[in-house]
């Protein structure tokens, strides 16, 4: 037995002698839960972290840039553009001499092919193109080649400039190499299965490997028209468990930990080797009340709920302070953002409003949320606040898929959930939250308010920025008083980053919509 023990201990020690690999200076290692990754095909990809990979591998006509919290579109492969007098024809001029990473020329044909491909494949991002009138049926007329370096897009309505630009600048606007893509097409899938884990791109990085549930490797594209990025290799290492990410970060085995909890992030405060990076998230966390159901049909009852909730407590206790007290639907940093926070916990006022609404003794309601710990805690906080004004909320926890399935059928009385921004324009928020005709959040909560819907729609067409901004302000004011939402907060995103990594804060300024990995260096 002693011999066996010695052999065992010796083996463990020997294993320990072989040291850990250090990360080279031109390599960035990110620890993240990659279970969410479905595909890296720009015409199909719709999830946040996979979109980071797509947007850093594919170039589009425009790209998103974030500066001091404001996201704007800037030309990428388009060098200039014109808009027709009626505001519907958008003509883009492409830079000359661009190539994909393998040397194939990038011309108007590739742009036309890529846009039509999104419509033909009909996957998650397609509705964004359809929302500006580009469809699979009309694409031959609405997406046209003028010459080798000019393309034209015809929208169905004269949308505000930033609406169209920001839709085209997202990951689904990435231009694929038609030659490579068609060479790998199977059963008319336009190379979609192949592009799931391969590149046909012209952006700053090339997807080299995606070993599922293990790692994703990107390598710098020396042919990128702005020049190859400083970090030559990026490895996204799958580390689904956040404690593992934290320990790996502290030991220096990864440079960035992507999925830490607020407690873990706080534990890094004061560290010499690791810094904390935060940025406003591109999403809203809300309580939704079904305006077609019982007591919530009355706007005063909805207002009572808004005055009953303890917003500060939720921000402090549930998300550890990593949130902004934003009560409007347009996130901080956006054009049209309204900084007013009219609601705070005022039980007396809430009771009075409930009385005026015809429910002095409260009522019972089912409050649905999904299984994450954060959402459950938010629901508990809302439940306890409502109890103070006599509303008895029964919490039901569901799988997200089950919850959204019921929500889409207008089948929930009350919900705690979140909404991620689809593209960086106020229109991407105003319509879901106020225009029931687009059949998103306002419709799911049966808030059929024509004044709000018309104003949201009109603002999407307004060309004059000052007028447009005023419209969003008016809409938000009206929405505060009448809408079926109590906005809990706008989350902050946070990362643990090794001190030797520079430029990460700049790279993630617009995270969830834009994360420019070319800003990072060591």
């Amino acid at each position, binding site marked *: 037995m002693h011999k066996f023990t010695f052999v065992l201990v010796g083996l463990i020690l020997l294993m*320990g002698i072989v040291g850990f690999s250090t990360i080279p200076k031109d390599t960035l290692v990110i620890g993240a839960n990659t*279970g969410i990754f479905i595909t890296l095909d720009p015409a199909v990809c719709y999830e946040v972290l996979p979109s980071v990979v797509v947007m850093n591998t594919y170039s589009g006509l425009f790209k998103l840039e974030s500066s001091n919290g404001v996201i704007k579109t800037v030309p990428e492969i388009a060098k200039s553009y014109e808009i027709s007098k009626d505001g519907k024809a958008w003509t883009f001029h492409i830079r000359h001499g661009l190539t994909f990473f393998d040397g194939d020329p990038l011309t108007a044909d590739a742009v036309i092919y890529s846009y039509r491909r999104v419509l033909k494949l009909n996957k998650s991002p397609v509705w964004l193109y359809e929302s500006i009138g580009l469809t699979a049926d009309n694409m031959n007329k609405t997406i046209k080649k003028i010459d080798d370096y000019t393309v034209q897009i015809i929208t169905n309505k004269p949308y505000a400039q930033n609406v169209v630009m920001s839709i085209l600048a997202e990951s689904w606007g990435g231009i694929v190499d038609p030659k490579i893509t068609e060479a790998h097409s199977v059963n008319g899938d336009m190379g979609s299965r192949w592009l799931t884990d391969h590149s046909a791109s012209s952006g700053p990085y090339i997807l080299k490997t995606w070993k599922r*549930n293990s*790692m994703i490797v990107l390598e710098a594209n020396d042919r990128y028209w702005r020049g190859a990025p400083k970090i030559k290799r990026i490895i996204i290492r799958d*580390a689904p468990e956040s*404690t*593992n990410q934290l*320990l790996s970060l502290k030991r220096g085995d990864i440079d960035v930990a992507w999925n830490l909890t607020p407690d873990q992030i706080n534990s890094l405060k004061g560290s010499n080797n690791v810094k904390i990076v935060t940025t406003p998230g591109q999403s809203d966390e809300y309580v939704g009340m079904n305006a077609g159901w019982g007591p919530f049909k009355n706007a005063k009852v909805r207002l009572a709920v808004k005055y009953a909730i303890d917003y500060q407590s939720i921000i402090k206790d549930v998300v550890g302070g990593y949130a902004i007290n934003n009560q409007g639907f347009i996130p901080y940093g956006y054009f049209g953002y309204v900084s007013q926070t009219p609601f705070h916990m005022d039980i007396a006022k809430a009771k009075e409003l409930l009385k005026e609404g015809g429910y002095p003794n409260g009522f019972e309601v089912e409050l649905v949320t999904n299984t994450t710990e954060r959402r459950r805690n938010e629901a508990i906080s809302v439940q306890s606040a409502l109890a103070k004004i006599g509303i008895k909320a029964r919490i039901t926890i569901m799988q997200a898929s089950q919850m*959204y399935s019921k929500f889409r059928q207008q089948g929930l009385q009350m919900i705690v959930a979140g909404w991620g921004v689809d593209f960086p324009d106020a229109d991407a928020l105003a319509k879901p939250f106020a225009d029931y005709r687009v059949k998103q959040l306002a419709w799911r909560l049966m808030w059929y308010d024509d004044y709000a819907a018309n104003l949201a729609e009109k603002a999407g067409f307004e060309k004059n920025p000052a007028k447009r901004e005023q419209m969003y302000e008016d809409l938000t004011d009206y929405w505060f008083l009448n809408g079926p939402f109590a906005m809990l907060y706008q989350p902050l995103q946070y990362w643990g980053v090794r001190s030797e990594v520079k430029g990460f804060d700049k790279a993630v300024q617009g995270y969830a919509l834009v994360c420019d990995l070319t800003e990072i260096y060591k």
Partner: protein
Amino acid sequence: MNLKLGMYILKRLSLMALVMFGVSIIVFFIAHVIPADPVGALLGGNAPPALVDQMKHQLGLDKPLWEQFEIYMVGLLHGNFGTSLKSNRPVIQDISEYFPATLELAIFSIIFSIILGVILGIISAVHRNSWADHFSRIFSILGVSMPVFWTGLILLLIFYYLLGWLPGAGQLSLFTIPPKRITGMVIFDALFTGDWAAFWDGLRHIVLPSIVLGYAATASIGRITRASMLDVLRQDFIRTAKAKGLSKRIVIYRHALRNALIPVITVIGLTFGGLLEGAVLTETIFGWPGLGRYIVNALLVLDYPAIMGGTFFIALAYSLANLAVDLTYAALDPRMRI
């Protein structure tokens, strides 16, 4: 092989086919009674209803349930589990990618469990009611009662973070080039191709997850070995062996252990079948790219073909492990063939 054993194998294989048929029906209906919408889950909360309906039509999920069942069963009979909604690849291709990692982890876990479990069982039985027996009992109770998640994190904290003896996550270090794929199991592939750097790196990576996964199994094997050894040690032939003047070592290892191991084989077989299910928590803590995580990720987005294919495959693996145990038993003990 005699005729009786051949008939027994045939009978067991027919039974297994029947079980797998039942499993396929149960798996299909369980996956489809979940009151949720797989397309909605796949597209996310923001997707408009029109797109959800279009996608349902594209994937055939708007067809009547019986029609979907027919397509599923016909596919299954042709060895086709369908195409994963999430990965957009044939489910069988996904399984062939993930299963080797699970199998490799299960093999190392069971080896660890057998070695440690049998040794603990023998010591406990031979030194009954001694401090070693008490230690073994406590060790076993801890093994079956401590959550894998907790054990995993504690071992990670000690051996990876504090001592730095062993690596923290994955099958290989980031900068180790994986060996040429033969079986899909990194350590075995490295061994077969003579890639000693990858072999050594793979071994270092599998130590912690296999200990964590194998701990509970060690406890069961240890307890059953102890009970079986005690039973055998009380029998007449052991007394005879001792009376003949044989050394204690020979009595224990040659005479008692060999007979005591028969029930242990059952436990080992069933435990190994269980390990093949894919240890979701162990795989999550150690970033192990195995089948367990594949199925959990499929469940989160209600990827029906992946859930059904993965569950069917696990049931098959478990049935095969069970069959192997029965056949071993039958070979060892002719009474079992009746």
